[in-house]
């Protein structure tokens, strides 16, 4: 299947060509219920247990809009500095696909609820880029298919497919940028910075889980090249479902080098959908359709128009979180950071998670020390962003609280974090399941101390003789005997008491 694809050296690409990007991000809202029915949206439920006549598309069923989803859409629009449409409708996008129960997607077409906005991004070197937002519109997610009989669940070669409609009808917001031009060699970096900033903004708005690994944030990257100095756009490709921040950057970079090679060889870029391959960072074309798609959009007759009043919009504007730039300024002051320290934290993608950990009760120093050291190592090992680690700021704050109360030592705390990262539940669950609480019972510790002193009588004598530093060996033995679950400081105190 794999064919050799020519790519051009990146430096040469940016010397000869000027890239234009367009990013489409789909965000699953974290509402309790679906867009048009009262079914739950819990991730990971047993297949087809969160369905009803409406989201299964049963004959006769009708949609009713989730007001909370509409509010989230308006808040996202406002946070992206968009205009909010005074009147807009849903439309039907007609095409057949088995994961779509009605064989049309209820979506917004030419009347998005939010349009014409912008977002400022700060790149790692401190440069600011303003990305224009074309629109943010509401739509519904599809079900999920499981392909059976082929190799590793791929669609090719499958004998049949199995459909689960739990996800069908989950509210989605699609956010589309205006063409991003003039960023040259920095295009891949800008793409990544945009998705990162958007993710942080959506998290601050508390409208979505924004988990790229679970599909609650999905990015499609449109890339085209034009000769330098030319104003018309080149032919673009759309790379689908790029599922991590790093992949966004890689996919854009790969498409630039691939398209440049095609153009330099006198060929033409084919306008098509492409798929990104995590393993080697390449993209490959999607299936060529026999019939050109014609979605036959028309206004959804089963839903009535949305006409948000000025009062409603202003009330929602009042619920927006601080703007990222202001927030950063405040954080820098509160945490007493130098410009350089702040920049390092920003580049490490640590500011938002630290802030959330502080919001959950930790001090800035405690939160910082966890995120920039132990958790940063874990993220690095896994090749993901800090925010993509399967541990939440609230869980980190809980671990810190357990250390502060003396229930965990630092070394036990790391084991608890490991447990959370391994999917064993909340910190308290891990403590209970792994039996990691500090041994704080002095009688148990005294027994262990006595045992250790008896095992090393020479050392015991030295301590009794005033050589306090010799206690270290006994502390080590006690810690080993208690599986590191003792508080070393307390153990030392007990040894000295015993030997005085």
């Amino acid at each position: 299947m794999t064919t050799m694809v020519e790519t051009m050296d990146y430096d040469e690409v940016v010397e000869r060509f000027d890239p234009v990007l367009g990013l489409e991000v789909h965000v699953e809202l974290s509402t309790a219920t679906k867009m048009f029915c009262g079914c739950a949206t819990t991730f990971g439920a047993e297949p087809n247990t969160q369905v009803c006549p409406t989201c299964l598309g049963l004959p006769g069923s009708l949609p009713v809009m989730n007001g909370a989803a509409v509010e989230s859409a308006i808040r996202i629009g406002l946070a992206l500095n968009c205009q909010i449409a005074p009147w807009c409708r849903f439309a039907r996008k007609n095409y057949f696909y088995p994961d779509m129960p009605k064989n049309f997607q209820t979506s917004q077409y030419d009347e998005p609820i939010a349009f014409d906005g912008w977002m400022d991004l700060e790149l790692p070197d401190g440069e600011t880029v303003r990305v224009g937002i074309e629109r943010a519109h509401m739509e519904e997610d599809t079900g999920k298919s499981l392909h059976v009989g082929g190799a590793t669940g791929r669609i090719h070669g499958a004998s049949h497919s199995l459909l689960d409609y739990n996800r069908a009808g989950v509210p989605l917001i699609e956010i589309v940028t205006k063409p991003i031009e003039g960023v040259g060699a920095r295009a891949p970096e800008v793409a990544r910075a945009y998705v990162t900033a958007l993710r942080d903004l959506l998290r601050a708005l508390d409208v979505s889980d924004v988990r790229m690994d679970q599909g609650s944030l999905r990015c499609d990257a449109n890339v085209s090249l034009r000769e330098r100095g030319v104003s018309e756009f080149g032919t673009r490709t759309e790379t689908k479902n790029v599922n991590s921040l790093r992949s966004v950057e890689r996919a854009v970079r790969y498409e630039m080098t691939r398209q440049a090679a095609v153009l330099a060889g006198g060929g033409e870029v084919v306008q098509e959908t492409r798929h990104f391959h995590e393993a080697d960072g390449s993209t490959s074309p999607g299936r060529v359709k026999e019939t050109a798609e014609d979605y036959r959009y028309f206004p959804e007759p089963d839903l009535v128009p949305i006409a948000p009043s000025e009062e409603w919009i202003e009330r929602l504007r009042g619920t927006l979180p601080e703007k990222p730039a202001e927030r950063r300024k405040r954080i820098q002051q509160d945490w007493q950071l130098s410009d350089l320290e702040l920049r390092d934290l920003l580049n490490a993608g640590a500011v938002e998670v630290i802030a959330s950990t502080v919001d959950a009760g930790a001090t800035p120093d405690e939160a910082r020390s966890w995120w920039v050291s132990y958790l940063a190592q874990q993220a690095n090992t896994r090749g993901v962003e800090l925010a993509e680690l399967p541990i939440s700021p609230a869980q980190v704050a809980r671990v810190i609280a357990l250390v502060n109360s003396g229930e965990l030592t630092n070394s036990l705390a790391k084991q608890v974090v490991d447990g959370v990262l391994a999917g064993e539940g909340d910190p308290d669950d891990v403590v209970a399941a792994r039996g990691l609480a500090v041994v704080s019972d002095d009688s148990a510790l005294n027994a262990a101390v006595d045992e250790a002193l008896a095992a090393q009588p020479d050392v015991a004598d030295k301590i009794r003789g005033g050589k306090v530093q010799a206690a270290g060996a006994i502390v080590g033995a006690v810690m080993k005997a208690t599986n590191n679950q003792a508080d070393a400081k307390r153990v030392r105190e007990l040894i000295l008491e015993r030997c005085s």
Partner: protein
Amino acid sequence: MPSISRDEVAHLARLARLAVTEEELDTFAGQLDVILRSVASVGEVAAEEIPPTSHAVPLTNVFRDDVVRPGLTREQALAGAPAAEDGRFRVPRILGEEQ
């Protein structure tokens, strides 16, 4: 007013996922042509400044509270399925990629 050809009818049938027969193509091409000619008069009256009507009642902002309602059990959901497997709807192999 363009008349509708047999090829266009075949294209419509593909879009609509109808495996029409050759005879049907002939019959439908003739009938659709007659119908389209007789409905083409809608083009005569409605000028630019006329707003379109998509809904018969002038309602706006009909929303539901974000509260979970009981839906169907899995057994109910799958009861009408032509085929099911492992709690899911079983369908023939799917060509192409998700949209």
